[in-house]
């Protein structure tokens, strides 16, 4: 009874140990040999190689793995993992490369257990030779270089039969993205004959894509790298009611054709002021970010870039004369940047708002505006009575160049300014009905309409 229990325990322990098996993988399907013998071919020309794909499976517990081959004509091309977890497998690439015209056999031992036997026969019969069109041997790998997704790069090779008898040549690649033209195989090469075929590389994904050309089980490594296609030529379009200071405009970027590429980038505003050593103008910015840059994205098929969910980015022109350059840069290298420049011309002072209030002590005048030349030099006030008659002595000119200059030098808001002027009145201020203001800068002069003095701000009346 005790013995039976011990036997059962031993069996249980065995069932928990690693259980390795090896199978051949052909065209993605597992093929099992009944006698655990796998052939690499009975006529493999000396000096050529035949690669076969095997799968080492572990049906037991996690286990460390040591694999060995007994014959040096067979070798493992792929690295063997240190362990194979329970119910997992590892793929192995095994190469047979005969050095003499003889039969070779190698056992495959895994953790001291022979799992299978590999067999192959080398022959002296010359195989088909493979060369470039200029007759030089095929480099290893035959590199197709960088090819954009959706495009095709081709290389032509020549298959030759150095023997006098016909030679049947099976030729293929390991599949996409490499394809042969013509695709028909096998090809019969007459004695001393040759045939040119084309290998096309058409990547559908990015990155290195190793592959191989198989000629009668000879293996010639192929390599190509898929890269993102370039973006179509972008065109920057600016929408502005007028090209002037203190304007909000839109920027759109259209493509010459639907984009095959996906990605993104930024548009940046570079400002070159017309005024030497001008302070920065923080009014120049993209609205959505409040900065000088705005990111964009592009999806495959887009005919314009996207700024978030919008097809345009709103920007402000600021209040300084100069050149606004919008530079578009893609994140992906190898895409040329593009630029568009608009020129904000120097202009007379712009008045944005005025507020004229009459108080018991005098006349209070506030105005805000901008001088995109930052050169305002004179302010001329003309006061009017209720009959629109200018009050004596007429226009009162105030030289203001120094005061403006001092202010602009301390401001980072471009040419924007607010002006507060108070005029004490010793008579009756109610006699002053309105004021007209003229401002002069290097680009000319600007005159407001008559600004009426009020006693209180506007309130609700119906």
């Amino acid at each position, binding site marked *: 009874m005790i013995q039976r229990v011990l036997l059962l325990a031993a069996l249980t322990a065995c069932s928990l140990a690693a259980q390795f098996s090896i199978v051949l993988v052909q065209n993605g399907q597992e093929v099992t040999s009944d006698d655990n013998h796998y052939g690499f071919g009975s006529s493999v020309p000396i000096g050529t190689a035949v690669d076969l794909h095997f799968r080492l499976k572990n049906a037991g517990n996690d286990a460390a793995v040591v694999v060995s081959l007994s014959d040096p004509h067979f070798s493992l091309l792929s690295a063997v993992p240190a362990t194979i977890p329970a119910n997992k497998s590892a793929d192995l690439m095994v190469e047979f490369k005969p050095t003499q015209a003889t039969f070779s056999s190698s056992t495959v031992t895994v953790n001291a257990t022979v799992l299978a036997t590999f067999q192959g026969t080398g022959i002296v019969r010359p195989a088909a030779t493979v060369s470039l069109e200029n007759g030089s041997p095929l480099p290893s790998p035959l590199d197709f270089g960088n090819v954009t997704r959706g495009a095709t790069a081709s290389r032509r090779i020549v298959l030759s039969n150095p023997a006098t008898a016909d030679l049947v040549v099976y030729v293929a690649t390991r599949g996409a993205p490499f394809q042969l033209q013509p695709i028909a195989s096998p090809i019969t090469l007459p004695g001393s004959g040759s045939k040119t075929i084309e290998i096309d590389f058409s990547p559908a994904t990015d990155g290195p894509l190793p592959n191989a050309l198989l000629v009668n089980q000879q293996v010639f490594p192929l390599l190509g790298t898929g890269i993102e296609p370039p973006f179509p030529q972008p065109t920057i379009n600016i929408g502005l009611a007028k090209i002037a*200071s*203190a*304007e*909000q405009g839109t920027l759109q970027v259209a493509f010459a054709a639907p984009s095959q590429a996906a990605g993104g980038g930024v548009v940046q505003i570079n400002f070159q002021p017309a005024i030497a050593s001008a302070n920065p103008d*923080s*009014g120049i*910015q*993209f*609205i*959505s970010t*409040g*900065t000088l840059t705005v990111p964009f994205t592009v999806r495959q098929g887009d005919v314009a870039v996207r700024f978030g969910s919008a097809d345009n980015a709103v920007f*402000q*022109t*600021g*209040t300084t004369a100069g050149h606004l350059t919008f530079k578009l840069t893609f994140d992906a290298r190898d895409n040329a940047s593009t630029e568009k420049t608009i020129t904000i011309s120097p202009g007379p002072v*712009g008045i*944005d*708002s005025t*507020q004229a209030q009459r108080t018991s002590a*005098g006349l209070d005048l506030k105005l805000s505006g*901008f001088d995109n030349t930052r050169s305002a030099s004179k302010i001329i*006030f003309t*006061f009017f*009575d209720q009959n629109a008659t200018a*009050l*004596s*002595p007429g226009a*009162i000119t*105030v030289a*203001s160049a120094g*005061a*403006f200059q*001092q*202010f602009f030098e301390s*401001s*980072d*808001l*471009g040419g*924007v*300014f*607010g*002006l*507060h*002027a108070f*005029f*004490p*009145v*010793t*008579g*009756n*201020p109610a*006699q002053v009905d309105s004021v007209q203001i003229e401002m002069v800068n290097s680009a000319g002069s600007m005159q407001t309409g008559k600004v009426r003095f009020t006693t*209180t*701000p*506007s*309130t*609700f*009346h*119906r």
Partner: protein
Amino acid sequence: MNKAAIVLALCATAALAESNFSVPLIGIARDARQQLRFVHGVSGNFVLRQAIGNQVRDWTFAGFGGLVKTGTELLFLDVNAAVVRRRSILDSDIAMSPGAMPLAALYFLRAENELWVSGAVADRKVPIAPEAIAGTVVALGPSGRNQAVLAVCRADSLSLLTVNLRTGTVMAETAPGGSIGEKTCSAKSAALLMIGSRLVLATGNAVVIQTDNGGEHRIPLLAAGGAKPELHRAGEHWIQLEIAGAPSLMIRVDGTDDKCYRLPGAGQDR
């Protein structure tokens, strides 16, 4: 003789010092990060500056002061938008107006049905009877010395009540016409604001500005999914329009040409 005296005074004082210059303050507005911030510049050239506060529920500001409502307080702002006083209030609905010099700011606490006039030290409650209002106050504004106008929704009808701020009596009652009269109380999501003599209504698809002669100017909008627009008096001539999921707009309301601009995003505090 009087004219001569005035002229002499003007001549004698018409000089400008550098200290008379400043960066113009357009008003205050809420940025994309929900911070209430100073807005400097001129029309079409806005620059957001330092934050006044976070967690702001509502605000109103004109050139001479304003109010800011947070979850727990009502903040009183001076001409430079600096906080000069605070009052603890419940987190309830409020209608606010910055007033108009010399009239101080006004606010109406909807839950309590109370109209208040702000003062330098304390506020004064206007003794208006709830039955005189008989509806929901949706906006208010000053109307000359010691008077205010309350915009009141009574069912689907909008009424404008002119209230004496000393006695609390309703001195006049009118019903505005146009689409503002028609839609303010009946539209699903609408916001009304009084600015100067204008009524401004925002719905999901337009901003309508009605002048004192009843003429209306419409600015089309496209609010996604029936989002409720919010209108805030941002400055003397400025309204900020917020609609969830859409860029903030600044609307200049003065003269004959009301113009709409985009408010810059948060950017960096400058």
